[in-house]
């Protein structure tokens, strides 16, 4: 598997570290426990295109948002993660 880093070009998987699903958003500090539980534990875990966070640790050291098909490992799209 290679990830097309928008800054470094297509690079081997071993250069990257995986964080997981890009969908969960940290709830506001005033949120109740249910929102925090949802954010920490629950995942859609789709079989198909999955937006996920990868860190290019051995490259540009930037966080990327990669869209990848979990059934085939085909990387569909990679962009810099929004701050």
């Amino acid at each position, binding site marked *: 598997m290679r990830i097309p880093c928008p800054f470094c070009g297509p690079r081997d*998987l071993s250069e990257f*570290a995986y964080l997981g699903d890009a969908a969960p958003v940290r709830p506001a500090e005033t949120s109740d426990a249910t929102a925090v539980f949802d954010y920490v*534990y629950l995942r859609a*875990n789709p079989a198909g295109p999955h937006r996920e966070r990868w860190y290019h640790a051995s490259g540009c050291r930037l966080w990327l948002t990669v869209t*990848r098909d979990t*059934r085939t490992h085909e990387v569909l799209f990679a962009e810099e993660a929004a701050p």
Partner: protein
Amino acid sequence: MRFSFLSIAREALRGNRGWTPHWRDAEPKAAYDAVIIGGGGHGLATAYYLAKNHGLTNIAVLEKSWIGSGNVGRNTTIVRSNYLLPGNIPLYELSMKLWEGLERDLNYNAMVSQRGVLNLCHTDAQRDAFARRGNAMRLHGVEAELLDRKAVQRMCPFLDFDNARFPIQGGLLQRRGGTVRHDAVAWGYARGASDRGVDIVQNCAVTGIRIANGVVEGVETTRGFIAAKKVAMAVAGSTSQVASMAGLRLPIESHVLQAFVSEGLKPLIPGVITFGAGHFYISQSDKGGLVFGGDIDGYNSYAQRGNLHVVEDVAEEAMGLMPMTGRLRMLRSWGGIMDMSMDGSPIIDRTPIDGLFLNAGWCYGGFKAIPGSGLAYAHLIAKGEPHPAATALRLDRFRTGHLIDEKGQGAQANLH
């Protein structure tokens, strides 16, 4: 047909022409008392214990492919019960005890081989942690032995004891652990369940779960609607997909775990050995191949195949433990889809939907748990209350904070 010395001798003389199929490949009926989704180890064991222990025989196991085509055929066949936490030990020990009597119970040769599971330690801190784990096991009535370096040397002289980075200091040994012939587990349970009247329906994928007013009514399948008052999921890596048909979002991610087998060798490794300075486990199959594996690949996957960075990592660990493996040729590798729960421990519980049950989150440990999981799950489905060995394996523990963090890592690959 029962297996006995007599029947085997008779068939040997008759050219083995008298054997009949081991189970009925059933057509689905329109309605059942209970339907189990997933014809893997856990699903088939659940059906067997529902029929045997609870007299529930009007049930079906629905398998989308052929039985045993999933993780029960894609593992490293290790069985053990050397766990630390009180929420986990009872279930795995129940499972271990069932493994010990499985072949007599099923009248089926599952090649249960209690050749011992040895966890190696490489630091003082790790030895202390092993002593603690061994004590926890003994408090639960599970035997455990803490071995010093000399004892490990006597047992496995071929290991790299003076490795510069990871010298071997000793190990924790569970003699009752070992390996089991994985396919025979699926076939044996299928045969036992089928003999008692359970319908095993292959090539029947569930496409929907019908629910009315919070109560389950049955499942939509590729072979039509099947009504059932109780629907039980046992689908490992596909858990999130099937549960989403009932509108559930679960604390589970699907990850690929690879395993490998080498060319056949003469007897070399006495039991199962795990490398403590990484995540690597190795044993020798009865055919002679070394069977080994390591970590999950580390990213969500449904692909049943992994990538080369883990192959490299596993090879490095093999070399760190047994330098002689450098001369080995690899025969095959495969990948299975693990249902990684967020605390690394399984779930056997009801769901918020009446009549819908969940058995999932087995992470690396699904194979060894098959008999115990099946028995506890059958108990839950039949009686509506958890089996005494599985009371902690609740779905709501993530919400209430009663996590069973055996290793505190769950699905997060960077913590492995």
